[in-house]
């Protein structure tokens, strides 16, 4: 009971803060908070394969962007009004892409997996940039409206309404991924990360697990991409390609792959800093990001989230009899 309580309390505090944010934040900062939740979701989805399964993907934005494009094209080009149709289409787009990419990429492992996923992501990036008639080309696909949930009392055009919408989607996805992590399936992924050969000897079809995990991660990334497309009103080739994939990876590494909320923390840090940098020294953002990454990797191995957990445990164990 006590242990349950001690894990529940931080989550309750986080929920209270996130619910109360619109009361204290101006709309610009609320949009930053919305961004953090969207990219937190994206980074968490990457962590399903990166941190839990040990597959280093550098093409994860392919699913984020594909879902964004599919949902945008469905709404704008084909006039699909309802979110309940456009979003599943976007998720389907991400899942199908992952189902195809997975067959190719999972033939190799380690750094080769990284390279193949990178190449596949760049392939999609080229498609997004060159296929003008469908994707509107280099400048990105624009004109994506706020999601239409068919609930008239919700105003998703307002920053506050949209923030709460993203918060709900984020929370549901977070909960599902948390359940996944502690489930037999989730433990199997961790077992695969640690020792593939033993998992096979224990009766696990390792390839199938990786393949399913890859698609599951793509579905959550796709959900993030759909939110982003609605949030921004547009989606661009860069959201499919390397820069977004790498950003997701930085978020995971900086925040901590070993802690469930680590990637969300990483997303918060990077997006907050990016926000401040764009106000103060816009041209220097890549430099700051680079320095941040070096400091994070050198000084906080395992991620800042892990160091926070360790510090909190140290403080609390001092007061209890566990020593």
């Amino acid at each position, binding site marked *: 009971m006590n242990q349950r309580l001690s894990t529940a309390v931080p989550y309750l505090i986080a929920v209270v803060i996130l619910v109360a944010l619109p009361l204290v934040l101006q709309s610009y900062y609320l949009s930053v908070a919305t961004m953090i939740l969207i990219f937190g979701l994206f980074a968490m989805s990457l962590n399903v394969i990166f941190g839990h399964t040990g597959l280093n993907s550098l093409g994860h934005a392919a699913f984020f962007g594909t879902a964004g494009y599919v949902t945008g094209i469905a709404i704008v080009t084909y006039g699909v009004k309802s979110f309940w149709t456009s979003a599943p289409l976007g998720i389907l787009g991400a899942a199908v892409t992952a189902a195809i990419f997975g067959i190719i990429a999972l033939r190799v492992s380690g750094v080769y997996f990284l390279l193949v996923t990178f190449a596949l992501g760049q392939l999609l990036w080229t498609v997004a940039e060159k296929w003008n008639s469908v994707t509107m080309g280099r400048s990105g696909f624009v004109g994506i409206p706020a999601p239409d949930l068919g609930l008239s009392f919700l105003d998703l055009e307002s920053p506050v309404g949209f923030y709460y919408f993203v918060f709900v989607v984020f929370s549901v996805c977070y909960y599902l991924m948390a*359940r996944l992590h502690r489930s*037999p399936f989730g433990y199997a992924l961790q077992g695969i990360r640690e*020792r593939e050969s033993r998992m096979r*000897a*224990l009766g*696990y*079809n390792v390839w199938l697990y990786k393949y399913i995990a890859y698609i599951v991660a793509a579905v959550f990334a796709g959900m993030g991409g759909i939110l982003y497309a609605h949030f921004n009103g547009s989606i661009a080739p860069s959201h499919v390609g390397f820069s977004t994939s790498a950003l997701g990876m930085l978020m995971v590494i900086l925040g901590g792959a070993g802690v469930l909320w680590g990637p969300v923390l990483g997303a918060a840090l990077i997006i907050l800093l990016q926000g401040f940098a764009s106000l103060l020294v816009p041209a220097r953002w890549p430099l700051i990001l680079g320095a941040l990454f070096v400091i994070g990797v050198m000084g906080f191995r395992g991620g800042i989230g892990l160091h926070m957990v360790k510090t909190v445990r140290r403080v609390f164990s001092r007061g209890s009899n566990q020593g």
Partner: protein
Amino acid sequence: MEAIRVEGLYKSFGGVVATSNVSFKVDVGGRLVIIGPNGAGKSTLFNLLNGQLPLDSGKVFLFGEDVTHLPLHKRAHRGMARSFQLTSLFPELTVMDNMMLALHGLRKSRFNPFRRTGSYSTLRDKGKDLLSLFDLWSKRDEQIKMISYGEQRKLEIALCLASNPRLLLLDEPSAGLTTSERQVVMEMIRNLPPDIAVIIVDHDMDLVFGLANRIIVLHFGQIIAEGTPEEIQAHPKVKEVYMGIEEGNGNA
């Protein structure tokens, strides 16, 4: 009834022959021990039996079924379990988590993405029994990297038993154990249900002659002798290539 039968196993690594013309069978209830000097190809043979390495030629039958081309995990589902010479656990996970992974391995529940892995109470009870049997229950919440080598070796074997195997392959189960731990492991193997077939690779002569009802001697990847423990002890070729090295230890 035969548990496993292999015919004409052959494996080479870039021209170096690791296993050549190996054929044998083990019946249900059999206790086969494979011995041989270092580099005789014992571990390679195990890897061929459980499918970790592909065969160059030969056939493997498991309970009468040709499994030569079946992958590792499917052989596990047909009742084959295997321990590893080099401890092969999940170092970042706890002892209990390791056990739960082994317990879920052959069950449909292994695909469940929603339920807590520890909430399967029958599996938990079974895990508790197994861990208690090896004196590991008190260490259940320790990460693998925090427990001793001997404890890791015991868990290595405990994980194999989690699946209720019908054929158990133990790769040097006594390696690195203290004398008393060795006794525990020997007792455990002796107490295995009689309908399980066991194949053991080991160097410890007490264990070899204490448990085996048949012994195979490997030398340079080939079987140079096969028989009951008494026959092997009397075998002149065995004395020459194997017992000679371990002078005086050959008498169990």
